[in-house]
Each structure stands twice: as structure tokens, then as C-alpha cells.
């Protein structure tokens, strides 16, 4: 990727770039050093997005082991599912939505052990901070 090139969200390139930047984030590595658990990040259509996009992200002890775009939400069973409309994903990536607050206000839905997530709020914050660092172009 060139210095000035933007990556379209949502896309396979975007989630790969996110995974790469996450693996360079020392704060995330420290905050998530005990984390074991994979996610589906689901972007549901609105505001010009005409279909659902599903990312698979495998997070393991402070590292992103794998990240890719799936064909559908049924393709992979994961421990957690984080889901919200495209418009809210845009706000989240731009840093306009707090990741935990947006769950409390139901802007996003999370399926999986809430207790486990609530003990890892710092890691969650770093995940979003990393997403904000991906040079993103929205549809």
C-alpha cells in the first residue's frame, strides 16, 4: 500500500491492514496479552452499503492471528459476534463513537461472554484506536 493510498471500508484489504496495524500496536499487545477469542465483525447495510459484510478476526494473546472477509455470517462459528450498521461503523472508525458506550446504547450488538469483554475494555478501546489508524475511504 502506498503512503497516501486509502483502503476502502468494508473490504478484504481493509481488514488485512487493520490486522497488520494491530500487530504493530504495543498498547494493544499489553492490554490483550491474556485474550483468547475470535470475532465476526458484521457490517449490516445502510447509508449506501447494499449488502452485509462479514469479517473474521482471530485475536490471540495480544496479536491478530488471522483476518479475512467471509462470504456470509454462516461460514464461521466464533466466540464473539460484534454487529452494527454501516453508518455506525463509520462513526466508530472515525473515533466519533466510544466502543463501550456504543454497546450500552445498542448502537452495536455483541454476542458472547459479556463478563469476558468487560474485563478487556482497554483492549477493546485499543482495537478501535487501531481501526481509526487505517487510512480509510468510505463508500
Amino acid at each position, binding site marked *: 500500500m502506498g503512503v497516501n493510498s486509502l483502503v476502502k471500508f468494508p473490504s478484504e484489504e481493509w481488514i488485512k491492514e487493520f490486522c497488520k496495524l494491530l500487530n504493530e500496536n504495543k*498498547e494493544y499487545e*499489553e*492490554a490483550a496479552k491474556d485474550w483468547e477469542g475470535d470475532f465476526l465483525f458484521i457490517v449490516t447495510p445502510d447509508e449506501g452499503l447494499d449488502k452485509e459484510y462479514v469479517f473474521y478476526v482471530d485475536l490471540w494473546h495480544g496479536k491478530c492471528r488471522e483476518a479475512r472477509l467471509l462470504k456470509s455470517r454462516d461460514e464461521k462459528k466464533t466466540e464473539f459476534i460484534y454487529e452494527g450498521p454501516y453508518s455506525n461503523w463509520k462513526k466508530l472508525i472515525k473515533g*466519533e*463513537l*466510544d466502543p*463501550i*458506550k*456504543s*454497546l*450500552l*446504547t445498542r*448502537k452495536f450488538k*455483541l454476542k458472547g461472554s*459479556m*463478563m469476558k469483554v*468487560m*474485563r*478487556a*475494555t*482497554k483492549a*477493546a*478501546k485499543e482495537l478501535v484506536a487501531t481501526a481509526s489508524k487505517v487510512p480509510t475511504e468510505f463508500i
Partner: protein
Amino acid sequence: MDMWFFTSPRTIVFGEGALEHLKELEGKKVFIVTDKVLRELGIVDKVVEQLKETGMEIRIFDEVEPEPSKQTVEKGAKVLSEFEPDWIIGLGGGSCMDAAKAMWVLYERPDLTIDDINPFEKLNLRKKARLINIPTTSGTGADVTWAVVITDTERKVKLELASREVVADISILDPALIIDLPPKLTADTGMDALVHAIEAYTVQWKNDFSDALALRAIQLIFKYLPRAFKNGKNDPEAREKMHNAATMSGLAFGNSQIGIVHAMGHSFGAVFKIPHGRSVAIFLPYVMEYNLSEVANLYAEIAEAVGITDGSDEEKARKLIKVIRNLMKEIEEPLSIRDMGISREEFEAKLDELVEKANESTGTIVNPRVPSGEDYRKLFLYAYEGKSVDF
């Protein structure tokens, strides 16, 4: 800002004679969650006396310990299920009220476990009973918050549970119940209330509603805490104002958040078995120094509210921190962890655990300056030594 909520009890009854509101309750059975000390002090009798006029059957569970455990909550919930009340009263400090909230959830929803008390779970309470909180200390704010702090004794960690649904239906603030509060408890709980208000005013989730309550509570605490500590029962005005301030602080932080003073305090309290108010208060000046680079302007606003008007924002903020240290001295609060009689060897042996537990707290991510693990380590060490924060 993002959408948010302001949640509070439907009714807050306050002032002299507030307890008499209990006479108005309608129902068949009422269950009181409290502790043995309050029973021995006759506080429970004062509540029972009012409830007798309702004709309701009364049962008392007085087994709540300081920093209540999961086991106590589960035991109380079992008794509740057998008794089947339509009112539950949490009577006491934060421990009793938090235990009452958790027992209430398990009574209403026997299909859930204590870990299910989280903001994402729909609890659908109030099908069987409603909750009244009656605080007997002036500090926790637990009478009006949606937080539930229960200790997992196996993991040696305080579970920071929360659900807006567990906010009580009624909170009763009767100054007669706290008039004889011992000076040490007055100081510890009063500082807890001050920390709540200052953190509520400075965390990332602060909002217009919490700001208003926090600022007024801070003014009341600065004015009345030294008097309540010094004069005790001879100063009923100070007692009443501190009681109101504690609940206002509760409404403030309950609708914004707590920051890393609480993250560190919860961790320290759990590891060293130190009562909540004291374990939290110790970190306030250090964290304020640490946060200065981010929120000197907000500390300056607080300073102005308590009459510190000269200087730049940073100067006002630093004066405020000095005033807080003086207040702590005046009410005989320890200013360093070393002052609490903990040896350096013992402290350092548990430092990793302290840092790890603080890092897990939600207070970490909403603090105005989000600390790294290394920052936490240094903050704990500075608080141990009593050294001003310079990083």
C-alpha cells in the same frame, strides 16, 4: 456527544423524618438486607418500627459482610425466594445495598447467575418486587447507582457488575440514621463521595447532567465534611448536607463513570482487604496530578467552584490538589500507602497483581488520561512513597 442516559430512582426522599415514608408502602411482605452491626446499633429497629404500620410481614437478612461475596448474595437470594416479598430494602452502606441489588436480580431471575448482571443483559426486573435503598453512611452513592460491587473471593477480585435496571425505585436519605457515624467512617465515606464527584466531573463520559450534580456535591463536601468529621452528632446540618452530597455524587458518577482513582482503589482494596472509602481516597491526589496534562481546565473549574480563583488553569488545579491533601490531613486520612502500615516488601510482592486488576477496570478506559500498565505501576509506587506525580 453520543446518545446517553440519565437514570435515577423514581423518588428520593430526604431530610429529617424521611424514614416515615416507609409507612406509605403497600404490599404483603418486605425483606430487609442489612448487617449485624446495624442490627446491634438499633438502626434496623428504626426501620422495622416504621414498616410495622404497613401491616406487612417483615423478614431480616443480616448476614451481609463488608465487601460482600458471591456466596452471601446467593445465600440471601435463596432466602428471598422462599419468603417471596414484594418489597426489598437495602439498609446499610454500599455493601448492604449492593448485596440487596444482586439478591433482587437472582430472586427475580433464578435462571441467571451473578455474572449476568451486566449492562447488555435485559433483566426484566420488577415482576416480583421493588427495591428501596436506605444508606447509613454518607459516601457510597450506591443507593442511586446501577453499579453492583461484589467480591469474587476465589479470584480475589471485585466484580464491577452493572445494570440500569437495578437502580432502586426509592432512595431514603434520613440524617437520623447517620448522626452517630464514627469520625473514621465519616472521613472514609466522605472522601469516597468526593472522589465520585471529582471523577464524574472529569471522565470521558461526563455530561451536562452529571456535571451539575458533581459540582454542587463537591461544594457541599468541601464545606461540610470537616465539620461532620469534627463535630459529629453536634452538627446535624453538616450530617444532613453530607448525606445529600453523597447521593448527588452517586447520581453524578452513576450517570457518567468512575475513573482510575476507583480502578486503583478497587484493586488495592481487594488485594489488601482495605475498606472501600479508604482504599479509594488514598489515590485521589496522585491521580489528579497524573491527569493534569489532560484536564487542568476541568480541575480549574472545580477549584473555582470551591473559591480558588487566582492563577492559570494549571495553577488553580495544583492549588485544588493541595487543598485536597490538606482536607485529608484534617480528617486524618492517610496520605500514602506507607502511612497505612503496609511494608514495602509486602507491597512490591503484590504490585503485579495490583496493576493487573486496575487494568481490568472499566475506569481505566474512560479516565481522561488512559494509563499504560507501566503508568499504573508508577502510580502505585508513587502513592506508596507519598511522592508527587511527575510523569
